[in-house]
């Protein structure tokens, strides 16, 4: 019937217009939609990256997702190009750099955050200070299995006047590959020749003694449950979980705990990254007043990106923001803002990224 036919035609016309309108807005909003960037790696830097997700989405229109599977996992992921960036606390070895070459495209290593590793412990006793004092030599002795009781002569000599109970030391370390382990063993290799020759530095090493736990959460759980336990975890972890941590003696003779100021003091040791982008700031030497307040177990952590990538523009925007505005988000979780010299180096690295 003609009336129905007209109605049908009008309805169809409206439907067509509506469909076109919806598609147009769909296309328009797709153009304004956020780019996605995915990353994986270090658990050490995970709290800072998490703090960045919202501001990055709002200010840069980038949807960042990060999977904290450990430094080794991050390196493997970026080598396989299954993520847009990898994050590692341990700098890449030459063979890992070689493994990161895909289709002739190399990877860049860019230091983007700075923090420290705390030596956590659990010791029950009355009159114990908030931060027990330890030296590098004593710490190495503990982890080598040579010092087995908390009231060992060496520990008592450092903590004069403190009544330390006769508790056996239970050594706890990481069982999985970890950048925190790298930082910790790097420090022990610096302060103990025996450690350096017998065990060495690595994301996973052959521990002479102690129990291995998976992830910082495992280490923390073991330390909390065992009287006499000693372990290591990133500083933020120790703070958030209210763990006791030691005051470590630096080369200048001072006993320091990890704080924004002491980690920053350590970072003054190395402000010129090597060609591959790595920096070493553990165990700063005794040079007058230079590193008097330095915390000796500090470390940079790195982002690893391919030099040629389809997401070059977004990555450059993201990293450029992270090393400048993003650093402010780290202060409350004990990530020290990286110094201008490093920022300049990083921007030079960023300029090498292209489509």
């Amino acid at each position, binding site marked *: 019937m003609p009336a129905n036919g007209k109605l049908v035609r009008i309805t169809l016309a409206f439907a067509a217009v509506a469909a076109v309108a919806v598609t147009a807005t769909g296309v328009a909003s797709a153009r304004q939609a956020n780019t996605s960037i995915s990353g994986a790696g270090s658990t050490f830097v995970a709290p800072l990256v998490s703090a960045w997700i919202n501001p990055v989405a709002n200010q840069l229109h980038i949807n960042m997702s990060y999977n904290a599977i450990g430094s080794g996992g991050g390196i493997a992921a970026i080598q396989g190009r299954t993520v847009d960036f990898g994050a590692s606390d341990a700098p890449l*070895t030459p063979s890992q750099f070689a493994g990161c070459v895909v289709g002739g495209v190399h990877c860049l290593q860019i230091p983007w955050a700075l923090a420290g590793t705390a030596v956590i412990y659990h010791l029950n006793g009355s009159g114990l200070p908030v931060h027990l004092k330890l030296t590098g030599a004593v710490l190495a002795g503990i982890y080598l299995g040579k010092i087995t009781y908390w009231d060992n002569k060496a520990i008592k000599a450092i903590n004069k006047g403190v009544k330390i109970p006769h508790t056996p030391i239970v050594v706890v370390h990481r069982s*999985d590959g970890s950048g925190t382990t790298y930082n910790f063993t790097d420090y022990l290799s610096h302060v103990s020749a025996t450690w350096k020759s017998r065990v060495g530095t690595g994301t996973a090493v052959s521990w002479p003694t102690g129990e*291995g736990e998976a992830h910082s959460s495992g280490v923390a759980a073991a330390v909390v449950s065992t009287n006499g336990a000693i372990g290591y975890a990133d500083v933020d972890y120790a703070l958030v979980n209210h763990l006791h941590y030691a005051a470590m003696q630096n080369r200048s003779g001072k006993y320091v705990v990890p704080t924004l100021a002491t980690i920053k003091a350590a970072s003054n040791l190395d402000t010129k990254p090597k060609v591959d982008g790595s920096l070493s700031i553990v165990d700063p030497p005794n040079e007058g007043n230079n590193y008097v307040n330095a915390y000796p177990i500090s470390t940079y952590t790195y982002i690893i990106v391919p030099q040629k990538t389809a997401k070059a523009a977004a990555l450059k925007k993201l990293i450029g923001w992270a090393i400048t505005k993003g650093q402010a988000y780290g202060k409350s979780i004990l990530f020290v803002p990286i110094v201008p010299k490093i920022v300049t180096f990083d921007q030079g690295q960023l300029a090498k990224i292209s489509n």
Partner: protein
Amino acid sequence: MSTLDPTTDPTRRPFSGRRVRLGDLILQAVAGAAAVGAIVLLGLIGYKVVQGAKLSLSTFGLGFISHVGWDPVHLRYAAGSLLFGTAVTSLGALVLATPLALAIALFLSELAPAGIRGPATALIETLAAIPSVVIGLWGIFVLGPLLQGHVDPALHSVLGFIPLFGPAQYASNIFTAIVVLTIMILPIIASISRELFLGVPAELKEAALGLGATRWEMVRGVILPYTRSGVAAAMILGLGRALGEAIAVAQVIGAFDNGFGWNIFNTGDTIAAKIAVQFLNVGSPSELSALFYLALILLVFSLVVNFAAQLIVRRLAHRQGLAT
């Protein structure tokens, strides 16, 4: 024997002759493809593992199996203490779990009041459904500290003269791993045994009771021998699960790869746990290849255990067949 010709049989629908043959064909093809696919998958996995292990096989050879020590910094890898840890934890779990599981199965099949049986069975089978990660988490936050605080020192003070129960220091140790594995394989053995016990013919049980046997004598003399081969198969199934359990064990075993020791309160490590914990974090191709070598050892180990299981089950069933 008379067969109706499908093309002339009036009871069939028209064209059904062709359809029946096509249906059969499709069934054969799909089922056959699935079976072949499974075998091909097994072959592919085996091939990939062997390929990955080639570098380690040539570097370390068979010494990998007997030597001890896992050193990623100096690139020296060996599976000795891992194999030892795998054997100790799996066998330990089996030794602890089997009597418990049989007791549970007996309770559920013979001794429990009728009203409890259903819910109790369901609850015990739910134990098997708990994911390994959750048990690992519970192990490290609850079980480990509990054993470390109360059980380990008590066992050491009472049984300390046996090297097995040496000094206890760690929350994560071989004993904790054994307890965790026991909890994981208990429901498997218990539920299979329960089914087996329910399948024992009533006449046999009643005959024994009628002859004046006590309940326990009936269990010992009728139920257990009758279900011998099935219980053995259940135990092997549990052993298989214990051998391969990676995540839960990794959380509670303490990752010690540098020696053998008889003290179950010392830290240790198993092959599966090592692979699970290190696989994502390999720093070099040689470490990756060493992990593949570990995987190869575990594969071969599991195949041998399965093969031995089939032999045992067949031998026990054969004997029982002759007896009845």
